[in-house]
C-alpha cells in the first residue's frame, strides 16, 4: 500500500513538473505597426493627356514636353513639400468596350508652368511616390506623358481613361 502511494506521488510529481515546463515555455513578443498620414494636398488637373489621332498597329508616344501632355498643378505654400501618388490606367476603353493599351509613363515637375529645366520622374501605379517642392512659389506643376499601342485590328472610335494624382504635404 505504501509502495503504491509512493508511485502515485511520483506520477503526480512528474505531471506537475511537465505542466510547469509547458506553461513556462509559452512566450510572446510585441512589435508596433506605425504610419504617418499626411494632410491631403490641393491638386488640380489642368490639361488632359491627349494622343489625338492614332492608327491601328502604330504605337504613339506623347512626351511630357509635348503639347498633348497631361498637366496638373499642386497648390503650395513657400517651403512646402508634397508627396504624390499616381493611379494610372493600363488601358483606355473605347467603342463596345474595346481596349487600347497605355504605358511607358514619363513625367516632369517644375516650380513654374514650364517644362524648361523641369525635373524628370517616372509616374507609377505601384504607389511610387515623388516629392516636389514649391521653390518659393504658390504652386508646382506636373507634366505627364505616355505611349499607346493600338492593335492592327483596333476598332475605330474614341478611347478614354482616367489618371488620378493624389498629393499629401510632406514633413507633417
Amino acid at each position, binding site marked *: 500500500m505504501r509502495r503504491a502511494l509512493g508511485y502515485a506521488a511520483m506520477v503526480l510529481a512528474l505531471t506537475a513538473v511537465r505542466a510547469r515546463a509547458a506553461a513556462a515555455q509559452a512566450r510572446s513578443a510585441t512589435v508596433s505597426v*506605425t504610419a504617418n498620414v499626411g*494632410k491631403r494636398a490641393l491638386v488640380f488637373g489642368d490639361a488632359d493627356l491627349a494622343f489625338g489621332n492614332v492608327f491601328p498597329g502604330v504605337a504613339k508616344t506623347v512626351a511630357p514636353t509635348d503639347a498633348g501632355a497631361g498637366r496638373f498643378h499642386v497648390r503650395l505654400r513657400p517651403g512646402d513639400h508634397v508627396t504624390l501618388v499616381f493611379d494610372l490606367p493600363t488601358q483606355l476603353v473605347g467603342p463596345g468596350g474595346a481596349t487600347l493599351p497605355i504605358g511607358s509613363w514619363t513625367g516632369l515637375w517644375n516650380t513654374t508652368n514650364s517644362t524648361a529645366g523641369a525635373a524628370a520622374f517616372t509616374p507609377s501605379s505601384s504607389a511610387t511616390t515623388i516629392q516636389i517642392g514649391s521653390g518659393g512659389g504658390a504652386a508646382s506643376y506636373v507634366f505627364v506623358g505616355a505611349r499607346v499601342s493600338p492593335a492592327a485590328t483596333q476598332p475605330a472610335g474614341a478611347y478614354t481613361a482616367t489618371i488620378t494624382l493624389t498629393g499629401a504635404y510632406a514633413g507633417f
Partner: protein
Amino acid sequence: MSPIHRSLPLFVALALAAPSAGAQGRPLRVTGQHDLTFGSILPGVAVTIRPTDASRSAQLQIAGPKLAQVVLTFSLPPSMTSPSGDAMPLTFGPTSAGYSPTGSVADETLFDPSTPITVTLDGNGRGVVFLGATLRPSGGQRAGNYSASLTLTLSPSGL
C-alpha cells in the same frame, strides 16, 4: 521505513523529470526585431506591405529546441489609432505573414496570421516570422501619427 526509503519516490520523480526538461532543450523565446513600418502615407490611398518586404515588414525571431514544432498565434488589431483617437483600418490576408527557418525573405512560407499555425524550427533551433498588412486610410483620414501593437505568442506544439 527509514528516512532514506521515504524520500525515494520524490528522488525518482525528479530523476525522471530532469531528462524530460533536458529533452525540451532551451526554452522557447521570441524577440521583436523590426516594427511593421508604413512610413508616410496619403489619405485615400491604400498601402500593402508584403511579408517579403525586408525593410518594412515586422520581423520576430524565434529560438528554442532544435527542430521543435511551435504554434504561432498572432493577436492582431483591426485598426491603428492616433493620439487624438482617430482610427485607420488595418487588414491581414491569407499571405500577410511568412515564416522562414533561415531568416531569409527569399524562402518564406506564407500564411494567414489570423489563424494559428505550426512551424518547425531549424537545426539550430531558430526561425523568423515576417508580418505585413494592408492599411486603408479613408479619403478624409485625419493627418497624424498612427500606431498599434501586434503580439506573437509561441507555444509548444501538441499541448
